[in-house]
């Protein structure tokens, strides 16, 4: 399945800002409802559509990103990406990503002579990066406070 890319415009952002908070409120009320689906009414055509609850929470995530003016891409988690696409997602150069693959930091497989990376593995790697960064920063600020470097 191909990734779906949507660019956010200024109008989209304004609409998303308004609807996001209301949708959040609705979804917290829906938490007590046990059915797996929710019904959505499209005002313009008067039709009711049944969608899974999980799709509703995805919709909220999409709207919150749109309200921040970010563009959205939806990619299925079990899809595979090339080294160039993976490098773009992590904001690193392709040679650096290849280095990460070669020393087994990120698992990959080969299709012929091309390397393919599972999106799931990319996300795991990014999360672990985030975690180390957080820990180091915490250590750094604690050390600075212990040594009284400007903290009074």
């Amino acid at each position, binding site marked *: 399945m191909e990734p779906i890319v949507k660019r956010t415009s200024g109008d989209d*952002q304004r609409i998303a800002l308004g609807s996001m908070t209301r949708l959040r409120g609705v979804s917290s009320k829906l938490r007590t409802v046990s059915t797996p689906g929710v019904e959505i009414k499209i005002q313009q055509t008067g039709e009711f559509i049944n969608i899974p609850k999980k799709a509703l929470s995805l919709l909220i995530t999409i709207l919150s990103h749109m309200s921040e003016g970010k563009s959205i891409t939806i990619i299925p988690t079990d899809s595979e990406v090339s080294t160039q696409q993976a490098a773009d997602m992590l904001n690193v150069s392709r040679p650096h990503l290849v280095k990460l693959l070669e020393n087994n930091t990120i698992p990959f497989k080969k299709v012929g002579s091309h390397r393919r990376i599972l999106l799931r593995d990319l996300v795991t790697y990014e999360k672990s990066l985030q975690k180390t960064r957080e820990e180091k920063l915490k250590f750094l600020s604690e050390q600075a406070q212990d040594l009284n470097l*400007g903290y009074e």
Partner: protein
Amino acid sequence: MIYSSNFIAVLDACVLYPAPVRDLLLSLSDNGLYKPK
């Protein structure tokens, strides 16, 4: 105009030495408020 939170800031060494300023700026960037360069 699209308001985007994708700000980029250049951090000079003078904000990285006083520890409280550094810790504040770096934790803000860690939470994705801006990108330090």
